[in-house]
């Protein structure tokens, strides 16, 4: 097969899903002739026609609000929010309707739909193009929230999300769209809600998802070569629900945990992971659970984002603070 980018993997997943199920619809801003600003929908309108893949008006509430109606009618809409911060106008439709309709109708109405959101920074985007908005969605019962970190997962998890019975917020790490991997498509990786160990280790667990998995892997390698620490990296993949068992098995083994995400730390998703670890692994911990994330500031201008986004140095710093025996 060969090298596949995450963008290609997502594109193939959409294509295969459109082929497999005539009820799957793809729509959003510029997803038709242009193929999306990130080309994730490239060629789909040409192959499946304007009825299956089409451009929408520039109205994000409209994209999600009409998707809700279409799903009620029996379709499986897969919609694209052009950028993370552009999805906020759709927030009400996502949280008040998509997330709740099953519960409000006591199961009479199912809403199988996927809201794809390219998220996170690292691409030098101007304002409103780099937010990590995952905590808004994970805080909403009724939503499933996932984020792939590799091309193989991007393919497998998107396909699974499209076949899911409930609305899925599918967070795509846009800075990794062009990351290549040796992948045979169609790829079937672990089930969507399972966290996976990306790198086994014994000293400390790095917990990451989406764009930060690659960063965590780099930091783990640096920790080995520079500090001689054996770091385990867990890719959470699914944020809601969280695969607590995989997380806790790793932390119980290593006794130390650092959560890494791009989003601001205060009220961030890492707090939920830390709380879970404290609840279930307290007696295994050698040190308080640490978090490395973006600062609690509005996303900075592009020239400053390298300081804002977690990188190897800051992760190594956090690891160094974990009350190692030699420091005691």
């Amino acid at each position, binding site marked *: 097969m060969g090298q596949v980018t995450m963008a290609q993997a997502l594109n193939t997943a959409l294509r295969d899903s459109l082929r497999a199920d005539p009820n799957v*619809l793809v729509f959003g801003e510029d997803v038709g002739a242009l193929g999306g600003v990130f080309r994730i929908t490239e060629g789909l309108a040409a192959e499946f026609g304007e*009825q299956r893949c089409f451009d*929408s*008006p520039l*109205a994000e*509430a*409209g994209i*999600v*609000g*009409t*998707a*809700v*109606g*279409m*799903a*009620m*009618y*029996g*379709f499986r809409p897969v919609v694209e929010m052009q950028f993370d911060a552009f999805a906020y*106008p759709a927030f*009400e*439709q996502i949280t*008040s*309707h998509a997330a709740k*309709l*099953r*519960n*409000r*109708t*006591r*199961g*009479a*109405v*199912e809403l199988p739909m996927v809201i794809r959101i390219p998220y996170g920074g690292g691409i030098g985007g101007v304002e409103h193009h780099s937010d990590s908005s995952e905590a808004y969605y994970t805080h909403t*019962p*009724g939503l*499933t929230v996932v984020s792939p970190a590799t091309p193989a997962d991007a393919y497998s998890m998107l396909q699974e999300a499209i076949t*899911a*019975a*409930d609305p899925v917020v599918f967070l795509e790490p846009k800075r990794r769209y062009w990351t290549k991997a040796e992948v045979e498509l169609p790829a079937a990786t672990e089930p969507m809600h399972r966290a996976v160990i990306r790198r086994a280790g014994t000293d400390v667990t790095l917990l990451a998802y989406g764009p930060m998995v690659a960063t965590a892997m780099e930091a783990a390698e640096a920790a080995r070569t520079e500090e001689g620490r054996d770091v385990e990296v867990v890719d959470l993949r699914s944020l*809601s*629900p*969280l695969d*607590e068992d995989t997380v806790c098995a790793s932390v119980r083994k290593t006794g130390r945990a650092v959560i890494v995400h791009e989003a601001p730390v205060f009220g961030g998703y890492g707090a939920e992971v830390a709380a879970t670890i404290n609840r279930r692994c307290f007696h295994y911990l050698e040190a308080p659970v640490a978090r490395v994330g973006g600062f609690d500031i509005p996303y900075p201008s592009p020239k400053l984002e390298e300081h804002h986004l977690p990188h190897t140095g800051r992760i190594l710093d956090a690891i160094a603070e974990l009350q190692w025996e030699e420091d005691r």
Partner: protein
Amino acid sequence: MSPEHWTRPSRPDEQTRNGTASGPAATSAVPTREQVIAGLRATSEGGADLVQLLTPEGQRVSHPDFDIEVTDEQLRGMYRDMVLVRRADREGNALQRQGQLGIWVPLLGQEAAQIGAGRAMRPQDMAFPSYREHGVAWCRGVDPTELLGIFRGTDHGSWDPNTTGMGLYTIVIGNQCLNAAGYAMGQRFEGRVGNTGGDSADNEATMTFFGDGATSQGDVHEGMVWAAVYDAPVVFFCQNNQWAISEPTERQTRVPLYERARGYGFPGIRVDGNDVLASLAVTRWALDECRHGNGPVLIEAFTYRMDAHTTSDDASRYRLDDDLEAWKLKDPIERLRVHLVREQIADQEFLDSVDAEADELAQRFRDFCVNMPEPPPERMFSEVYAEESPVVAAQRQDYLQYLDGFADSAAGGVH
């Protein structure tokens, strides 16, 4: 009616205006902002474009575009609909006053708008309501008792949208217009619109209900944009009852609401919302247009909220009794009753039988309400996801176990 037809013919003064060059003189006929607002404030008159088939005095009048043939049976049926729905509505108010309901949202005064619209729908159509649509619910076969759960606090709506063709009440203002537009797009994608011959009876349409206040919401605007650009078979049925809680229509708009449709590129019609015949005629036309692929359509049903916004509201703080008195003379039920009696379509025996039926409904409604079981706590944990999430499962188990700890106590409740 051809799509061109809905473009309101220019008035003579407009023609003059259009025929002259631009400049101060050319715009002299344009009403000032003050004049427009004065017009909006004159809430008891719907203006020259108001479609009416039954005058407030119960006189049947004709209309060049929207006349309708109805049988005596249908007329009596709609009278019965309105009387029963009003009775359930009044009972809802009373039950709230007696502490049996947390809140009630009165429909009083809007019966004709809703029954006319609801009776224009076919079984295969879908309604996306706001929260005051008790009359529409009635027409869709949702029993009034099924509305009670929302207002007694036992559920969020107990009817099945799939089997009734009636979506759940939507509390957030205007959101349902987008859901309706999407649903209607689905109807079009599935080829359930514009069929001719044998298939035409199966053609579908969607109707969404909202108020004058909702027209300021972005979702209503977006819903109209989406419906327009995708030719979605959806009727936007706006009940302009003149008040958005305490805010008059003039706080929402500078133009009569039906005129906004022109900006989106589809017909907008203002109908006398207190005239059930006109509401039926205009809505039937609008739904047919949608079924034939000529949607969407905006209908502004010009009516009046005769009661407060909800039982929690005090309308005397912001509006005048004079207004209310003027609208009492336009009562939707009274005008049909007068018409039925004058034209000898209904006799006293029929009117009495409807009143008796209303008494029975009120009794059934009340009995059902006071006997509604408390919802079991475990219910709130269900149907969050198709497959129960591990988090919710654990919380349910923990909480039910906690409740079990009180099983032996006399009260058996939570302390």
